[in-house]
């Protein structure tokens, strides 16, 4: 393991009675990553995060945190980690400020100005001295994120951080993660069911299915390998279809929006000039020719058992 690796699991497994929640999971989170954790309901995401944090012992395999595998050493290293797992967790009878202050101090020295700063960062400075039990769902989520950030961690683990946030809150959250990663070099592990958020925020993702690792890859590399197709809007449509079909390398795809919809086809990108020239030569009026790339959601569904969207977590 290189010194650049913050979290590494090898052959990590956990079962609850007969249910295998996580099976032989090996993954690596590097310094500076914004690591997206994707999986359907029951895929083993939260169980894995709990094992990484030492909240749950694995039944097999190892977890390495900042290069240390022994439980006692890893516990001391939790001072460098901020986490919100499952749901925002805090003491309801204490105020938001008191929760941040006392829990933050368990990780090491802390100044009150830092607590004020973090409350301001998550937009809770107006409610810092109110008992946390009176917070709304969105405010509790913000407080949970603030708790994860208060002790200036190098690694932040956020489980479904956008749950309960309004669109503005989600946008602020995305900006915050990107800014802390860029300016302060904070590494993030983010589990989310909002694939669009993962796509917009993360630099690296892993997909779990049934407790097993399906893929772990840089998001950029995934997008480079994603299949792409083209959509051609031209008239007359039948003539355009004939021209496209005359190319041996073209594969016409079934029209997904009716007979008047743009023609969908797969075609080598570097042969496109030949195709457009042939269309113009045959008198076809070209309106639009656009590239359609598979989204992360389509990729995820194709890899994670191809189950329905309703089962996503």
């Amino acid at each position: 393991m290189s010194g650049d690796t913050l979290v590494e699991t090898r052959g990590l497994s956990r079962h609850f009675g007969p249910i295998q929640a996580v099976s032989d999971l090996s993954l690596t989170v590097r310094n500076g990553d914004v690591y997206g954790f994707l999986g359907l309901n029951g895929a083993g995401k939260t169980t894995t995060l709990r094992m990484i944090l030492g909240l749950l012992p694995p039944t097999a395999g190892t977890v390495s945190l900042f290069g240390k595998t022994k439980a006692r050493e890893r516990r001391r290293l939790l001072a460098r980690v901020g986490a919100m797992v499952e749901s925002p967790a805090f003491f309801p009878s204490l105020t938001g400020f008191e929760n941040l202050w006392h829990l933050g101090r368990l990780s090491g020295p802390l100044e009150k100005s830092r607590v004020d700063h973090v409350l301001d960062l998550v937009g809770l400075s107006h409610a810092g001295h109110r008992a946390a039990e009176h917070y709304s769902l969105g405010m509790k989520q913000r407080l949970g994120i603030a708790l994860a950030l208060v002790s200036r961690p190098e690694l932040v683990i956020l489980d479904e951080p956008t749950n309960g946030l309004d669109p503005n809150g989600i946008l602020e959250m995305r900006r915050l993660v990107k800014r802390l990663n860029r300016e302060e070099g904070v590494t993030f592990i983010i589990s989310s069911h909002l694939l669009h958020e993962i796509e917009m925020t993360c630099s690296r993702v892993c997909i779990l299915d049934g407790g097993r690792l399906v893929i772990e890859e840089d998001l950029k590399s995934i997008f480079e390998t994603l299949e792409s197709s083209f959509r051609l809007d031209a008239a007359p449509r039948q003539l355009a279809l004939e021209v496209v079909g005359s190319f041996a390398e073209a594969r016409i795809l079934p029209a997904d929006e009716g007979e008047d919809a743009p023609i969908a086809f797969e075609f080598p990108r570097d042969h496109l000039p030949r195709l457009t020239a042939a269309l113009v030569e045959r008198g076809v009026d070209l309106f639009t020719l656009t590239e359609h790339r598979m989204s992360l959601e389509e990729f995820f569904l194709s890899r994670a058992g191809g189950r329905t969207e309703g089962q996503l977590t």
Partner: protein
Amino acid sequence: MNPLINDLLRCLRFESRKLVRRNLFWMSLAAVPLTVVLSGWAATTLAQPVESYALFAEVSSWGFLLAAFFLLVLGCSSVNEEGICGALRAVRCRPVSPAVYLLAKALVLAVATLVLATLALIAAYLWTERAGGFHAVSIVIPGLEDTEVYSAAAMKHFTLGLTIAQVPPLFFSSGLGLLVSAAIDSSGLAVVLGLLISAGLGGLGSVQTDLAPLCPPALLTRPMELLGELARANEAVQPQVEAWTLTSAPVWGPLLVTGVTTLVAMLVFSKRPVR
């Protein structure tokens, strides 16, 4: 500073803050002296007039009994309620040792124990003073001409010794609550189980008197009963009263059991996965 000491100090401050935010704690602070005053009023108004030491013994025992109940409930709901609301996850994601975290809880409950015991005693003392105050006691031994007289100062000395002997069982109440709370997720069930264990140990201590020092709940009223008996000129209890010192088994027995109970609670808490 040693990191463990540092962690313990931070946890102590945290636990103190949590305790003062618990309604049950404030309720106990009000209820314990109020019970002492009400039992004193009942003893002096509704019943036959009683000797001042017997009055002190009776009213302080009621206060201690209620304090033991509140401490048991405070202990029984101290860990599992944090688990239910998820707050324990926030603690266990931090580098502090679970054993240190629980030790801080035990120490803060011990301070709460002292506060409640002091309140019960102050209320009992003030009520006794109001009812006539402490004075010398004569013990007449039938058949003999001699009358043994205990001065007011001697009686106060006995009273102090017996009073101190009442505090260790209170520590056990909170320690037992902490252990049950660390082992059982439901605070309601934990309170019921804590009361049953407490009553069971009390019963065992009554039957097996040689085990009584190690069965703290049995001692909750016994020292004060002795004082009351002495005040009623029952010379048979005199050796027992004089035997109560800080180093006697009825004092260190409950403290020892409390220490063991707290250690077991720390072990259980450290080994349990967090919800």
